[in-house]
């Protein structure tokens, strides 16, 4: 970092301010990318007017529109829980950004248990979803919340196990340590195993974020918006749209960190080292976002039972096998 003498508190405040600006801006940009990528993949143009140039301000305009909307709390809702739920969903997403190494030294807090922190905080959001669904006093919201809870439990395991395998290979839970432990060719190493773990993580992440094809909790054709059916205005934005895009970006960043070598250049070639790690991280995260959206737009929604079967009968056994293989690789590999 730049050599300015600041106290630890001051540094922390600056870092938090950066996070607090980067995350919303990232979410807005992510929302725009989502609109545009989806539109073009479906042979449309997407937003073209807001802001003038190719509708660049569309998500901003959406945000302003929602900010002006009335904040309605249903009469029979549990008001305190209802009001709190969006924050319980959104704040953990913000917290996830704290431990992700954007560059070798550019990290809010390089925790020794960074990976553990990620996985633990990442699951808190499901409590918020449950709170929202339960307090809404709405059957769609409740069913959505229960689905969401079941899904998060089912898909947390593949994520945790694949992340555990990565930690085993790196020999550390520190995210900087994990990035440092990775080397060319990143996910292709160990051969096959890296890719399998990556795919496992990808599927789990998509389910955890309730992205299609795992969006049963908010299946709009059955459940309106699931747990967010009764929400309006800013609460809806923070609990649902904002959290969704911010969540997507942070999972892309986690995937980059765990599997794609984080801030390292994609090819170990001298001249490429000149490019700052932030840029590499940005490129890789963008690719991950693109990939997540691409998968999201490609596949139709699974049925609830298919989703559960897929998790419990296929993904979790697979992840256990992969843990075994990873252990074998560490013990007997080169």
């Amino acid at each position, binding site marked *: 970092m730049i050599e300015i003498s600041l106290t630890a508190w001051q540094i922390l405040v600056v870092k938090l301010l950066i996070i607090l600006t980067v995350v919303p801006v990232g979410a807005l940009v992510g929302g725009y990318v989502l609109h545009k990528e989806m539109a073009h993949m479906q042979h449309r143009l997407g937003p073209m007017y807001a802001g003038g140039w190719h509708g660049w301000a569309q998500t901003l305009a959406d945000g302003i529109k929602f900010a002006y909307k009335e904040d309605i709390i249903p009469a029979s809702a549990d008001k305190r829980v209802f009001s709190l739920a969006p924050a319980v969903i959104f704040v953990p997403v913000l917290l996830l950004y704290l431990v992700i190494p954007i560059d070798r030294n550019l990290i809010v807090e390089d925790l020794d248990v960074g990976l553990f922190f990620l996985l633990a905080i990442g699951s808190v959001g499901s409590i918020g979803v449950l709170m929202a669904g339960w307090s809404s006093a709405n059957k769609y919201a409740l069913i959505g919340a229960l689905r969401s809870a079941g899904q998060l439990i089912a898909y947390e395991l593949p994520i945790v196990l694949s992340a555990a395998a990565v930690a085993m290979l790196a020999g550390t839970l520190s995210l900087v340590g994990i990035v440092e432990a990775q080397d060319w060719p990143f996910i292709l190493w160990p051969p096959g195993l890296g890719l399998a773990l990556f795919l496992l993580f990808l599927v789990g992440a998509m389910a955890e974020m309730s992205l299609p094809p795992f969006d049963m909790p908010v299946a709009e054709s059955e459940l309106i918006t699931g747990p967010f059916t009764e929400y309006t205005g800013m609460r809806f934005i923070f609990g649902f749209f904002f959290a969704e895009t911010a969540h997507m970006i942070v999972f892309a960043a986690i995937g980059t960190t765990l599997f794609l070598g984080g801030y390292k250049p994609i090819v170990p070639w001298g001249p490429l080292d000149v490019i700052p790690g932030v840029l590499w991280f940005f490129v890789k995260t963008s690719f991950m976002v693109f990939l997540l959206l*691409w998968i999201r737009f*490609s596949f139709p929604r699974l049925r609830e039972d298919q989703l559960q079967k897929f998790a419990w009968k296929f993904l979790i056994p697979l992840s256990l096998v992969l843990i075994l293989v990873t252990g074998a690789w560490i013990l007997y590999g080169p």
Partner: protein
Amino acid sequence: MALDVDQRLEKARRPGFGVGLLKGMAVLLKHLFKRNDVIQYPEVKQDLSPRTRGVIALKEENCTVCMLCARECPDWCIYIDSHKETLPPKREGGRPRKRNVLDRFAIDYALCMYCGICVEVCPYDALFWSREFEYAEYDIRQLTHEKEKLSDWMSTVLPPIELEDGADIPGLPTKAISAASASPTVEATAASPANVTSSAAEARPEQAQTAPREASAATTSARPAETAPDAPTGPAPETAKEASGLAEEVKEQQMDAAAEPAAEPEVKRDTQGTVQAEGSQAEVEAKAESETPSAPESTAVTQTPPAMAPVPDQAPAATPTPTRPVPKLEDLEAPEDAYGRVLDEQTKAGSSPQVAEARAKVARVKAEREVTRAKAAASQDATPAPEPSGAPEATEPQPEQGPVAPTEEERGAGSAGPQEQTGAGSAGPQEQTGAGSAGPQEQKGTKGPND
């Protein structure tokens, strides 16, 4: 793959696990980089095809308030108001003319389903398809567009497509048909413009008077159609024009028409055309007699005969067959026989694939009828041929043909092409009854030449 049995079976048919998923993703990726075909409408306008059916435009001066469009409209979305206006006579001693004046012509585009039947059905080319399509309104009531707006859209209507070389000119009888049923055809063309100018109901008696005379002249004028295909277009439109009340021209034209066959003495005059002419003429005259009482019409009648009188006398002088064989109903040929003979003559003049095709059709229809007739005869000797089998014996169609013969023939005459011709030939009594039940005579007559 711990999935459903169905899914496993489905997978077994596929190349491999996940290949389908990847294929789906590949499709999306391909579309991401494809050129986007979206036309950003308000800024960029689509290049519509020239004859796009956007909205229906009205050419107000062509509308005669015949109400056909309003009646045919499946949605009943056309509103027409009109009043009658009396025009001073064109010549001294003539009768004052009446005509319909269009007061309101509105189409409710909130109801209109753009079927285009009104455009199709309009006999006077008053309705057209326009390419205009941007006429949305904020209020559904404003979608009822009045004739001013409809007329504005006329400026966006493209001119009609040019006819091909040698095509039948719209509004004129087709060659073969004109030959087959000479008199009624020309009568039809003659009758229609009369309606264009004068209101239908008023003009009918007079028209009925002039039309048969025209028809008798037309038998002679239309005959050359068989042998010299280019000839008949000349006299035919003029005869049409005459009937609109221009008596002087009528006279001249009659002379021309009469002179025409004289120039071609080898033209054989068959009884069929004349007989039908007589039949229809007699009928229309009878009708006219019942309707003639008003004074101006009767003067018109008395004025014209001297001019017309020589025509029938002149024509037979040139042709081998004598004048006016007595129209005996029993002597009339069955329609298919008549058409068969016409086709024979046509093939003599010069055969074409269409003629051959038409001949084949006629032959087939004839054969079918023979079969049905034979069957009917075999099954029931005592009773005459059953109705549906439609043996068009001379006696059978006649009672019906009497009142409706002109209209039926006109309809056949107006529509072009060999199919139509054989269709009319083979349809027999059904066709006739259909025509008989289909509304007033003058509208039929006018419809024919225009469609």
